[in-house]
């Protein structure tokens, strides 16, 4: 019966602990679920209008304002030459691998730092400093140390994306109810069983929250690395198109990037709805 707006900071840079936005709604069985609240569709009018005007005003060759039709043409050209698909695969696979590594690494480190106050104090300042590093600045270092290949890409993206998982896991560990561990011990559960049945499921929402914030970051940094180093992927195509003064193609590739972003966010939402269908997340 009640719809309550949950106020939330929008974290487009994807750093730190952020609650996913949405309106809390009560379903028929009284369970509170977060649905993605998309504002009224008539809000798309300005965008649509802008595109129309742009199409009419823009010229084929202007570097500032290539008309939307050139965007489609540009993409089409890449597609027909068989270059768009492999690039998309490269970008998305780098993204996926890096996100996976970030999750595991971030969760492990978060676990260590959350569980041990000593470790937290020892590593804390270093982690803070590393976290504040603009990922872009890491790129030249990575290329010098590793080279121009996918490993380097994954390394940079992992470096940028794992902080969110780390911090959220750390928070999760810290807020683990000590009663949970006491209960597990009193039931005489062994340490492995304890971890598997009690600790891990209890930490899962925090880890997932970290992953949810890390995903857009991972995508953005993947693109960033590709644009700057031109190793492969959609970002590289963008940089090449820019150098060839194919403005329409650049814009078209931006749309492709936006599409990736949209798809990934949707996938994460679906995953969250599925994995946590029986309990509230973060």
């Amino acid at each position: 019966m009640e719809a309550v707006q949950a106020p939330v900071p929008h974290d487009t840079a994807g750093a730190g602990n952020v609650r996913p936005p949405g309106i809390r709604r009560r379903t028929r069985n009284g369970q509170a679920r977060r649905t993605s609240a998309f504002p009224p569709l008539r809000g798309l009018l300005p965008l649509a209008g802008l595109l129309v005007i742009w199409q009419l005003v823009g010229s084929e060759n202007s570097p500032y304002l290539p008309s939307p039709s050139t965007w489609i043409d540009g993409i089409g050209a890449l597609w027909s030459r068989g270059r768009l698909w492999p690039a998309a695969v490269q970008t998305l696979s780098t993204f996926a691998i890096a996100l996976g590594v970030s999750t595991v690494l971030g969760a492990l480190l978060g676990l260590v730092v959350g569980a041990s106050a000593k470790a937290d104090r020892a590593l804390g300042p270093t982690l803070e400093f590393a976290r504040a590093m603009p990922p872009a600045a890491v790129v030249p270092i990575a290329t010098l140390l590793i080279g121009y290949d996918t490993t380097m890409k994954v390394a940079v993206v992992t470096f940028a994306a794992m902080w969110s998982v780390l911090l959220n896991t750390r928070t999760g560990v810290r807020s683990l109810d000590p009663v949970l561990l006491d209960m597990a011990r009193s039931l005489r559960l062994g340490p492995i069983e304890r971890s598997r049945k009690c600790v891990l499921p209890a930490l899962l929402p925090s880890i997932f929250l970290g992953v949810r914030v890390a995903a857009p970051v991972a995508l953005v940094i993947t693109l960033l690395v590709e644009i700057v180093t031109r190793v492969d992927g959609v970002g590289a195509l963008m940089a090449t198109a820019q150098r060839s003064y194919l403005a329409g193609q650049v814009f078209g590739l931006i749309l492709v990037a936006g599409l990736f972003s949209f798809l990934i966010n949707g996938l994460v939402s679906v995953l969250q709805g599925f994995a946590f269908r029986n309990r509230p997340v973060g």
Partner: protein
Amino acid sequence: MAALVGVWEVVVRSAAVDFEFLPAPSGIAEALGALVSSGDIFAPAVHTLRSALVGWVIAGLVGIALGVWLGLSNTAWRYSMASVEVIRAIPPITLVPVSLLAFGFSLRMELVVIVYAGAWTVLVNTIDGVRNLRPELIDVGRMLRMSQLARIRKLILPSAMPSIIVGLRLAMSLSLVLAVVAEMIGNPSGLGNALVRAQQALQPERMFAYFVTIGVLGVVLNTGLRYGSERAFPALAAGRGGVA
């Protein structure tokens, strides 16, 4: 932290791990010292700092102005929010090639990217803050029969401040990141550019020195902003609300 650096030093010196281009911390410190004493570090650092700050200020003003308007005016919100959400999905980094194409290798290219990205962040957070007045405070406003103007001035805007500040802080880190990126590929000045040049010249010590400088800059800007906002709005320091 010191321990980590110490381990690093030992590892490299003992050549236990041999990355061809991983310098020892002492080497980095040396290079940094050299840069400072020769004054070479100041020009690029100032350039990056200035671009980030100027871009951030413009982004902030634009974002707050638009955000307050869209937040307060229901009609405006309804007829534009969906567009905002769609455009927001496009990562700002992708604007760099566009800006490069349109403005070439220049300061303007750098600023355009920074302002664009920062403004969206501030805009979205401002709208959020303005539109999400706590229901209890809505009630208080009605109970006291406050005029619309009084409500805006006394309830809505102060309540929106934390969100606006969050937006500004996020925009600050974004500004720095994009400044560095823009300098790395588009604007031949600033720390980003210096970083890349050191890398291309195969001078790892200098490169790391610039790297460290960028990090320091980031920390300084973030802390400065946090300190400034807590001084200006003491209520924020009370741990009120979740700040990213």
